């Protein structure tokens, strides 16, 4: 660093730094601090007994316990399923691999609460179509499967979350250096030993990071427990917070209970993150090399076709069956009729486009997720740039604030946003789309930071220095060198935010106003009000929008990559 140009650089950097800190403080920091303050302080006094008392309440205690059991069960099931299918695709001679790999990612597209809605129709104890069928077939008195139970919630969440694990493990298995396994084999180790001592330790970090995502997600997931659990009195923390806030007329006491439960969620999430850290530190795992060699494929022989059939059946049962069910229910004249042609109608679908509530919901979701994706992407780029590239003092605050969103569940963000933006600081955006917008930015900032800093880390400092040495200003360097290089990272950040935001439910369900329902909220509210067929029709429309969005985006990204 030469003195002559460090001076101006630092001043520009400092402005950017300050601005970045400001954005993170306003969007993430203040809401979190307010949550902790509200939880621990009452009327300006520290109130630990009050805190403990709420935790001791069997009602809240049970919700906390359920949240943990659901998170643990879902993580276990999705990891098992994810690792198995990843191994099948990456390390065996399963036919139609490419197609199968793409198929295993399809459950991602189906929002889990829509899946839950479909499974309730199929497997509710008395009326579920499959249950009725099985009862008739086997001559049973009672329904064989009760989806509205803890087990049901865990299975349904796993169905739609396992791709997190699949994606990570599959790519690790593909990138793994095969010589390690081969040398073990040459030394006389059997398949079991190799798997246990070589393969598993090597992919463990990927398994863990996938499992971590599933755990964090299911710990604070609203949709599936809300649809399958509440009616049977099964609450987890987000559904309990929702119930408390709505049954008490939005009183401050309910919000306070919510904040106390939220702190527990944040602490649990932080513990999960910490546990992953500790587990990963135990061994050295940098043995995954960028080798181009393909690992040996296990020959499935006689099992080849049966396993292919199992995989296809799995996709068929978890994706196609619920999707078809949702479309059919959306076409019923009224819920409870059988799926016969005479009972089907287009009326519900037409109503979706005529009814102001549903039209508003679709429109709100589209523009809120587009806007949030754009703003979060840009802010994330700026903040990542400061974190990765510049080294001013005070950077650690930024890093700390940047990590925070990772461990903030959607419900917590919603409560924090309510506390911050309903007039306390002179700005009141409650009941407007802006409050949902702010919440989305806070919720998805982590995605943007992750994607952008990964891209920035690959840009060598020497490129920037070269540009500055040639006389370009800082701004010119950013515009001509850095931005073009990290553009793919920015674009992927945009879509990583846009698509989940489009179907967001956990956060919006606590923030929506009469005219600011989102697609997720509208479907949920319709279902809760007993407009099951309309809920299904809107869910079908949402699925089409998501499918169209995903497909066109994937094609767009593929073309973009080809150009570069």
């Amino acid at each position, binding site marked *: 660093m030469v003195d002559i140009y460090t001076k101006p650089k630092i001043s520009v950097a400092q402005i950017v730094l300050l601005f970045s800190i400001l954005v993170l403080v306003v969007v993430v920091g203040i809401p979190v601090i307010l949550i902790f303050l509200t939880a621990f302080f009452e009327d300006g006094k520290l109130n630990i007994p009050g805190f403990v008392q709420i935790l001791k309440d*069997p*009602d809240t205690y049970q919700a906390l316990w359920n949240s943990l059991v659901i998170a643990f069960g879902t993580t276990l099931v999705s990891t098992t399923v994810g690792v198995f299918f990843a191994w099948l695709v990456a390390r065996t001679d399963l036919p139609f691999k490419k197609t199968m790999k793409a198929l295993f990612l399809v459950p991602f597209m189906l929002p889990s609460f829509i899946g839950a809605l479909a499974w309730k*129709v199929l497997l*509710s*104890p*008395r*009326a*579920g179509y499959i249950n*009725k069928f099985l009862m008739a077939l086997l001559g049973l008195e009672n329904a064989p499967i009760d989806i509205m139970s803890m087990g049901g919630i865990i299975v349904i969440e796993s169905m739609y979350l396992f791709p997190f694990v699949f994606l990570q493990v599959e790519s690790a298995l593909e990138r793994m250096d095969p010589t390690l396994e081969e040398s073990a084999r040459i030394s006389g180790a059997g398949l079991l030993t190799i798997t246990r001592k070589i393969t598993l330790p090597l992919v463990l970090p990927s398994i863990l990071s996938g499992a971590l995502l599933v755990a964090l997600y299911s710990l604070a997931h609203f949709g599936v427990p809300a649809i399958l659990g*509440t*009616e*049977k*009195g099964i609450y987890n923390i987000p559904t309990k917070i929702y*119930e408390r*806030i*709505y*049954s*008490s*007329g*939005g*009183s*401050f006491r309910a919000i306070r209970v919510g904040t106390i439960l939220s702190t527990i969620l944040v602490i649990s999430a932080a513990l999960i993150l910490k546990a992953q850290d500790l587990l990963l530190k135990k061994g050295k795992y940098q043995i995954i090399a960028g080798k181009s060699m393909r690992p040996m494929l296990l020959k499935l022989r006689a099992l080849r076709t049966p396993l292919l059939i199992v995989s296809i059946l799995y996709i068929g049962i978890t994706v196609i069956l619920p999707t078809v069910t949702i479309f059919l229910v959306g076409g019923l*004249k*009224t*819920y*409870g*009729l059988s799926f016969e042609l005479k*009972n089907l109608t287009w009326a519900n679908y037409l109503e979706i*486009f*005529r*009814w*102001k*509530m549903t*039209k*508003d919901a*679709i*429109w709100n979701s*589209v523009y809120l997720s587009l806007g949030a994706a754009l703003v979060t992407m840009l802010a994330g780029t700026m903040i990542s740039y400061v974190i990765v590239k510049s080294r001013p003092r005070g950077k650690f605050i930024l890093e700390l604030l940047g990590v925070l969103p990772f461990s903030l569940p959607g419900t917590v963000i919603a409560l924090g946003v309510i506390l911050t933006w*309903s007039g306390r600081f002179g700005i*009141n955006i*409650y*009941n407007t789309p802006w409050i949902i917008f702010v919440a989305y930015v806070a919720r998805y900032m982590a995605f943007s930071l992750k994607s952008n800093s990964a891209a920035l880390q690959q840009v060598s400092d020497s490129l920037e220095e070269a540009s500055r040495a040639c006389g370009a200003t800082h701004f010119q360097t950013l515009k001509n060198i850095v931005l073009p290089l990290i553009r793919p990272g920015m674009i992927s950040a945009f879509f990583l935010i846009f698509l989940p935001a489009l179907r967001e439910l956990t956060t919006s369900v606590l923030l929506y*106003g*009469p*005219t600011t329902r989102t697609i997720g909220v509208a479907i949920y509210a319709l*279902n*809760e*009000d*007993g*407009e*099951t067929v*309309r809920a299904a029709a809107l869910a079908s429309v949402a699925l089409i*929008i998501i499918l*169209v969005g995903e*497909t*066109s985006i994937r*094609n*767009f990204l*593929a*073309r973009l990559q080809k150009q570069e």
Partner: protein
Amino acid sequence: MKKQVPLWVAILMAITSMLYAGGSKESAAPAQGEKKEKLMVYTSMKEVLIGELRDAFVKKHPNISFDYYSAGAGKIMAKIAAERQSKQLVCDVIWTSEIPDFIAMKKEGILEPYISPEAKNVVSPVSDPEGYFTAARLGTLGITYNTSKVKNPPKTWQDLLKPEWKGGFAIANPALSGTAMVSIGLIVNTFGWDYIEKLKANGARMGQGSGQVVDDTASGDLLGCIGVDYITIDKIKKGAPLAIVFPPEMLVIPSPVAIFKGTPNLQAAKKFVDFLLSKEGQTIIANSYTLPSRPDVPIVKDVGLVEAKDAVARAMKVDYNKLMAEKQAVIDKFQQIMQGK
């Protein structure tokens, strides 16, 4: 695959433009010369009822941009409480079935008194002479049951305690649904908590909203539930395997409408209340299979509804002021019993 991109994009754009076109049409219709007014109604009436009222009202008053938010009474009160806390009340008119809420709001002084010229025609078991709220409908609730599963239709409330109803009956969550809240108040006042305990002992459960229990009954998930008249009959008309019976002791719950004090859209709000209570509005309400609050508007025959006069005579009674004071306790106790705590 690549060739399809424009097609996908085109479909996406078509959908968005459909939404957009629909949205802009409404905002692009300010009447000539007349002042554009706005009105927001929070109601627990379902789409089948409020939807038609909206269409007729907007047709009559094209210069009022009318919007409503339909949800359970519990949610509506939560929304209003939150809005008041942030000093940003969005709604001008409230129309639900949770009478205790109206009495409480009147006491709090947040309602605007308005005696509509139409109000003299209204007959209701609960009325407010000062005009803080006026009944716009007389909701009746009965036992809704699934006709393919229940061979012996129940006749009395006591029938629900028979073994054939084991594990098959539900009442909506009184924290969400106003009709459920008032129904429980009426039942407890008539038969005592003992009856609720016996229902629970026979496996009855607490559902979600007042619409969902009816849907769950239609699907066969429940054998029966306490069902709201128009929600049940609307589904029967659409072919659902349902029927509704009204036991001798009837649940008759007026749904009052009220205007919030300080609304900037007072004129529009008054016009809406007038419209609801007018013969035209009441006819729409009656034709949606519930009881109008005006005796001069005929009810729909042959769908199982009970004439208003008859219904009021058979209605269970309760002191609504007392019920207001006990509201939270009633909800808590009911939830406690139903969730077995």
